[in-house]
């Protein structure tokens, strides 16, 4: 049962995928084809990346509200520069830098993560508006072909890269330390974990992920908007929650969050094909979030009861 809680993200994803398949097939009279899967993959990639970064932060017991600002800023720059390779590199670097600033303030400034990133959210969003005052911009077709090609599953490669990145990270000393910090910061410090450095790095990685997400976002939508990042704040948190990562830190996995992100995107399609008025969409998303978490805590309770 303990495993059930750990695998919450995958279970929710499996259930949602099943629902998607059923609803799609009954509604259109044929099962979803490769084109549909690819469309889902491409639209979900940005959220997958942001959720990945968010989960790292949450694993240390923190939270990053500034993902919205970082995504907006990076979307603005990518779209304004048309996504030239040099600029993409710069954008990813800038995202990491934005995250690092968060991390330094949280770790060395000793300001609560939610407050730090709330303040920087405003700063980064402001910067995005400065770069791109009105929605627009463009993306080079070559970039689009490599990142989110609507016909060739390039996105799959990038998803695999993200998964591999986590796999490696989990097997570094840094990976172990992320869990140590989230589990009990004081104790981690006492046994020699450089807590401040771990935190700074985790926020920097989150910024990096948000920047990558921004590039994918522009590649998918082919244009930019300085407010593009705002929805990612709450959806990334929701992904992390559905993915079974505990808000107290130290428990869960980034892969769970990735599964959660895909599930959240699928839910929208499920609602669409089920013929539910799109106006009610957030109602079901909200219920989905709470029910997923209740299932997780229910499983944990059962496990404890059985152990006792």
């Amino acid at each position, binding site marked *: 049962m303990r495993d059930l809680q750990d695998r919450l993200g995958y279970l929710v994803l499996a259930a949602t995928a099943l629902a998607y398949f059923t609803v799609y097939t009954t509604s259109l009279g044929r099962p979803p084809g490769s084109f549909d899967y690819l469309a889902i993959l491409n639209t979900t990639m940005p959220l997958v990346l942001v959720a990945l970064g968010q989960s790292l932060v949450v694993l240390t017991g923190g939270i990053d509200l500034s993902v919205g600002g970082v995504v907006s800023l990076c979307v603005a720059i990518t779209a304004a520069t048309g996504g030239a390779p040099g600029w993409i590199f710069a954008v990813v670097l800038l995202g990491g830098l934005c995250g690092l600033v968060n991390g330094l303030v949280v770790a060395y400034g000793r300001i609560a993560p939610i407050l730090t990133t*709330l303040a920087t959210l405003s700063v980064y969003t402001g910067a995005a508006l400065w770069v791109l005052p009105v929605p627009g911009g463009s993306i080079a077709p070559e970039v689009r072909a490599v990142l989110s090609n609507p016909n060739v599953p390039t996105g799959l490669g990038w998803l695999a890269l993200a998964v591999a990145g986590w796999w490696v990270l989990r097997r570094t000393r840094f990976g172990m330390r992320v869990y140590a910090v989230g589990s009990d910061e004081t104790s981690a410090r006492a046994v020699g974990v450089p*807590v401040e450095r771990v935190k700074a790095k985790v926020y920097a990685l989150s910024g990096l992920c948000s920047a990558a997400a921004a590039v994918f976002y522009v590649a998918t939508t082919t244009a930019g908007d300085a407010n593009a990042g705002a929805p990612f704040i709450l959806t990334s948190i929701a992904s992390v*929650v559905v993915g079974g990562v505990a808000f107290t830190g130290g428990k869960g996995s980034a892969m769970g969050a990735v599964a959660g992100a895909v599930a959240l995107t699928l839910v929208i399609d499920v609602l669409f094909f089920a013929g539910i008025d799109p106006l009610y969409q957030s109602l079901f998303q909200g219920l989905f979030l709470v029910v997923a978490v209740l299932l997780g805590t229910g499983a944990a309770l059962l496990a404890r009861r059985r152990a006792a």
Partner: protein
Amino acid sequence: MNRRAAYAVAVAAVVLILGAVLSPGFASWPGLRAVLIVASFTGFVAAGQMLVVLVGGIDLSIPWVLNAAAIVLTTTGLGLADRLPLALALAVGAGLLAGLVNGLGVAWLGVPAVVMTLGMNGVLQGLTLGVSQGLTCGDCGHYAPQPLRDLFAGTVPAALLVWLGAALFVTVLLTLTTFGRRVYATGANPRAAYLSGVGVKGVTVALYTLSGGFAALAGIMLVGYGGQASLGLGDPYLFESIAAVVVGGVSILGGRGTYVGVIAGSLTLVAVTTVLRAQQVPEYGRLMIYGLVILAILFAYGRERAHD
């Protein structure tokens, strides 16, 4: 009043004086009146947010509780003065009910506050949009009944008296009653409070309920101020309420804070924006400066204790 609240008042005073120096109209009563009215909306939502933060929680459902109340008010009031009492009761009731459900989820089902209130936000968004069918009406102007609009007329608008009343209510509740003591005890150490006979769950539910009520109150007042309800009405108030609470010197970890500080925090935030507007700083600059001001204030008195 604690030390942090005193800082908050001092910061508000400095910002107001700065505003008076920078822009000529600011120091006049009409200028101040405008700031106070806008600050009162922040003050209402921040009152609820503060109550929840005092026990270490957070309320992310404020935007759509606010919207839902505003829309309940306009659609049941229909702009008719004699329907106003019913409309007010329904709007406030909707807010209290949403808060009650939040509280029950957090206290009894053990759903993390972030998840529960985020889910509630989604549920209310879907419900509101779905039931009102997007609320696109040609002449919403008459949807705010006249008595409600009159609250904002006159040299000393009655709306400010409503705020004063809310401030007295919160302050008396927290400082003079046994309930207030139990709130601070729960925030300071929930386990110790529980073992001293405090009904921690009941206290928590009551606070979330009140937060819902205050968000609804803000929605009602905003309808009166703007003369109509719009769907994005509550959006800015999620982060603004958290910012006002911490700028007001309330500890995000719970157990410490006063509403006097939160009033000062609300004034500071609104005054900063007003001054920047008067200086014709473009939106991107306002956002960035706003974030930096919050960050500076956090560095001044929002830091957590050192680790060693």
